[in-house]
């Protein structure tokens, strides 16, 4: 039982982390986030389902198509919901993305349908035994893919030209402009990447759970809690916080039952922020007068 629960915890945790990295990456370049990251995740799952199951596309076509559409969604979020407000120094992007999340959830509900659907995948149908519990290949893949993407993000940022351009925008956007870097574009790309991460999480989680218009809401909130707990500006912190959150959830479920997971985890979020306002792994920033 412990193994199975911990495996679920790590799996869920790495998906929270993936979504939270989406918050992280837009935050560092623009100090803004898509508050409706959960809807982007849902969109990924719904698009994946529609391509794979409804229209029967082969998987090698369905996945790129889903990710491309998600990236376009991310670009649209930045262009229409964030930039109009952040460029005039307003923080109304927060409400705008919340509203857009509700809008997208409802649009999907009316087009995709109100009933949850099952995203069947060959990866969940077979199973093998591991430490006394049956494990499907997907369950093992989820944390691995999560970690791989986080690692890839780190490597790209550290070792590629694109990554350095991104870093430049993070560390000193004004100087980046002087180098001829179009910071606006980098911010837009960050939103696209953020939506793609969410879509990957959505497609990975869907076969274990189900696909519905409402699947992202709670997930997105938890991922946001993870991002905040990790100290949203620190990628490593965010990933660690994701795993921690998933494990705490799993452990609370084992010992107290799933009814208490939300009380415990969200109370912990309040407590953690009360004690460490910049997140568990964040660092204090000096305010200049």
């Amino acid at each position, binding site marked *: *039982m412990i193994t199975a*629960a911990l495996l679920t915890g790590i799996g869920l945790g790495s998906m929270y982390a993936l979504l939270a990295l989406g918050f992280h990456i837009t935050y560092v370049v623009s100090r803004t986030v898509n508050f409706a990251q959960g809807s982007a995740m849902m969109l990924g799952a719904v698009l994946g389902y529609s391509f794979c199951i409804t229209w029967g596309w082969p998987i090698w076509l369905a996945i790129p198509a889903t990710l491309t559409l998600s990236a376009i969604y991310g670009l649209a979020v930045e262009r229409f919901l964030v930039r109009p407000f952040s460029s005039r120094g307003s923080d109304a992007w927060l409400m705008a993305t919340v509203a857009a999340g509700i809008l997208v959830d409802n649009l999907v509900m009316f087009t995709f349908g109100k*009933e949850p659907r*099952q995203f069947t995948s060959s990866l969940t149908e077979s*199973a093998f035994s591991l430490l006394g519990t*049956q494990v499907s290949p997907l369950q093992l893949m989820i944390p691995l893919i999560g970690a791989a993407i986080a690692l890839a993000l780190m490597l790209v940022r550290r070792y590629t030209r694109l990554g350095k351009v991104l870093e430049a925008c993070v560390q000193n956007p004004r100087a980046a402009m002087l180098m001829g870097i179009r910071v606006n574009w980098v911010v837009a790309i960050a939103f696209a990447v953020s939506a793609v991460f969410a879509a990957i999480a959505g497609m990975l989680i869907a076969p274990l*759970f189900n696909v519905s218009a*409402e699947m992202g809401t709670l997930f997105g909130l938890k991922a946001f809690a993870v991002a905040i707990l990790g100290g949203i500006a620190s990628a490593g912190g965010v990933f660690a916080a994701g795993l921690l959150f998933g494990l705490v959830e799993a452990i609370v479920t*084992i010992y107290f039952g799933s*009814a208490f997971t939300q009380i415990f985890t969200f109370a912990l979020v309040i407590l953690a922020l009360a004690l460490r306002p910049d997140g568990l792994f964040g660092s204090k920033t000096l305010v200049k007068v």
Partner: protein
Amino acid sequence: MFKALKPFRRLWPQAVAVTTLGLLMSSPALAVEPIKIGLVAALSGQSAKSGEALTRGLTIAIDEINADGGILGRPVELIRRDDESNPAKGMLAARELIQREKVTVLFGGLDTPVSLAIVPLANQMKVPFMGAWAAGTSITQNGASDNYVFRVSAMDEIVDEALVQYGIDEYGMQKPGMLLINNPWGESNEKGFRHALEQREMEWAGIERIEGSDLDVIPQLTRLKNAGADTLLMVGNVGPSAQVVKSLDRMGWDVPVVSHWGPAGGRFSELAGPNADRVHFIQTYVFTENNSAKGDEVLSALKARYPEIQSLADITPAVGIANAYDAMHLSALAIEKAGSTDGTAVRDGFYAIDNYAGLIKDYSTPFTPEQHDALGPQDYVFTHFVDGSIVPVKP
């Protein structure tokens, strides 16, 4: 004074509309006023399918009644409101239907909490409230001295009794484990199961809660397994029920699952995967390949009225259709007996119904002041999913 109210009027256009409407209504009737039947059910969200089923059952019955000249010579009209599965919304909607639309009988939907919220209102306003789906025991057994709540549906306490008996008869159940959804419906059934098991002096392995947001329920199942459960008694909506089946598959635990009718509410066989058929669950009615004459009649009416219904798989929550259909006809009989649309008279009209040959069964004195539930354990049928349709376990 009028001047002071002027800006307010602008903000309150509905007040004006209501007044105008009121004036129109109070003028001598222009045509025969229809008898209004209200429905408060989930028309949006996860449970929207249930509202659709109820609407279909009611519509078919109302079409039949109107074709026969209506009730008391007046046509019947259905007015629907969405409760969004939210008790507060449901109660507001019920108030609107009772107080503004002046419905004669109000029908309730799938969600027990919503129905529980409407019960005190119905009793206070003296308007018959007909439960066509929600099975919560305390909906009809609400303790009111003047009870206006009736039901043509299953009732948790009786269902639980039947589930326990089925487990013993079919699987030789000795130590059941319970998986209950963490909401009032689950709570209502916990009471019912405890009662049924205590009567038989049977011990149980444990009571576990499941949630719609559970990605897997292995921790709960493992606890039950370790406690020695030999049969699972399950109460949950489609989503969590499907998660139970998937988790059982992953654990490789081959245990019988006897369930309340949650799985009937949606695409259970799709969500739960290939082993969906292991869950045996209770229904009040199923359409099959060979129905009764009445069944075929209703089925063809449904197909004629709703072209999107192609096969039996398209009318999966048959309980909603059947319950609503029978309940509507029973209500029509009650109004006929009452001879008016007065709430108390109609309530007494329900008691006066003697015989009605319905879809689910032939009713004979279905309601008495002591018995507000028209269906009993003998009316339940155990079913499971085969190829996406619900079929009786024993044909």
